[in-house]
């Protein structure tokens, strides 16, 4: 059953309070990130793009949102 309380999570190394139980897709939208432009690692597990809907954010989750930058 979906809860709406705030939960504390780690996003890219910073603590954030977000709505608990929301999907990763929702989180990306709230952060104004196009799903196609980032790769999501949830608690050290890489998520497939087409399954962002299935995964929900819970208390204590560690989320890494990465993308490609200039590099040699």
């Amino acid at each position, binding site marked *: 059953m979906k809860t709406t309380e705030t939960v504390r999570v780690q996003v*890219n190394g910073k603590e954030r309070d977000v709505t608990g139980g929301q999907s990763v897709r929702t989180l990306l939208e709230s952060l104004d*990130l196009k799903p196609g432009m980032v790769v999501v690692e949830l608690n050290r597990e890489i998520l497939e*793009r087409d399954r962002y809907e299935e995964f929900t954010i819970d208390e204590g989750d560690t989320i890494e*949102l990465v*993308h*490609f*930058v*200039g*590099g*040699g």
Partner: protein
Amino acid sequence: MTESIAELDAARALDAPLEIGGHTFTSRLIVGTGKYTTNEVMVDAIRASGSEMVTVAVRRVDLDRTKEEGVLHHLDPGEFFLLANTAGCYSAEDAVRYARLARAAGFNEFVKLEVIGDERTLLPDVYQTLEAAKILADEGFKVMAYTNDDLITALRLEDAGCVAVMPLASPIGSGLGVVNPYFIREIKRRLEVPVIVDAGVGTASDACVTMEQGVDGVLMNTALAAADDPVRMSHAMKHAVLAGRLAYLAGRMPSREIAVPSSPTKGMLA
């Protein structure tokens, strides 16, 4: 104009394409996308270099800043073949993690494996690199491994299943050129997979000398990004790589200490 086309075609006709892990490239120059003053200069420079494969790094999205930092806002993955690197990793574990994240981006299974062993010299940790290479190759990655100029390590990386082995010419960003041509030449002589010299090239002649060793390609970044005029230097590098490659294929004259006249010694007047 027609002449210029003829020239280029002739040049192309004189060399075979470069094949890495089943992909074919006409340019033997691979360039990085880091350290440019602006994204516009970066794109212009890369286009001027004629490169088809470009490296990119995997980093956290900066949630506080504009998303514009993402390199794909400027580089069209349709125009360039993306080679994600594991730059900044100091262990096999980290490198494997970064490689997986890169592949999850969905472009290709290639990765420029880079495991650093020392912050001051950015020299590779060949022990961790070899370990990571095995894991990634087993997972189906097409590993292009950055390594030092040690033949034994190069042979091990080939055995581990790397699709390309990439020894350094000199330390990353040093611009010292090919310090040890003997080792580079021997690595090329002994490996079957493509040998791409990665890091150390500082100017056009370095790229030319590198290709003259017989290697299959060159990867560079700082030499272009840190030139006073990156776009012009990129043009220079495109020609330098081609020049070195063709010279290698053409077979240079023997060098000798004693002079030999280039005009006839007969037929002089009395």
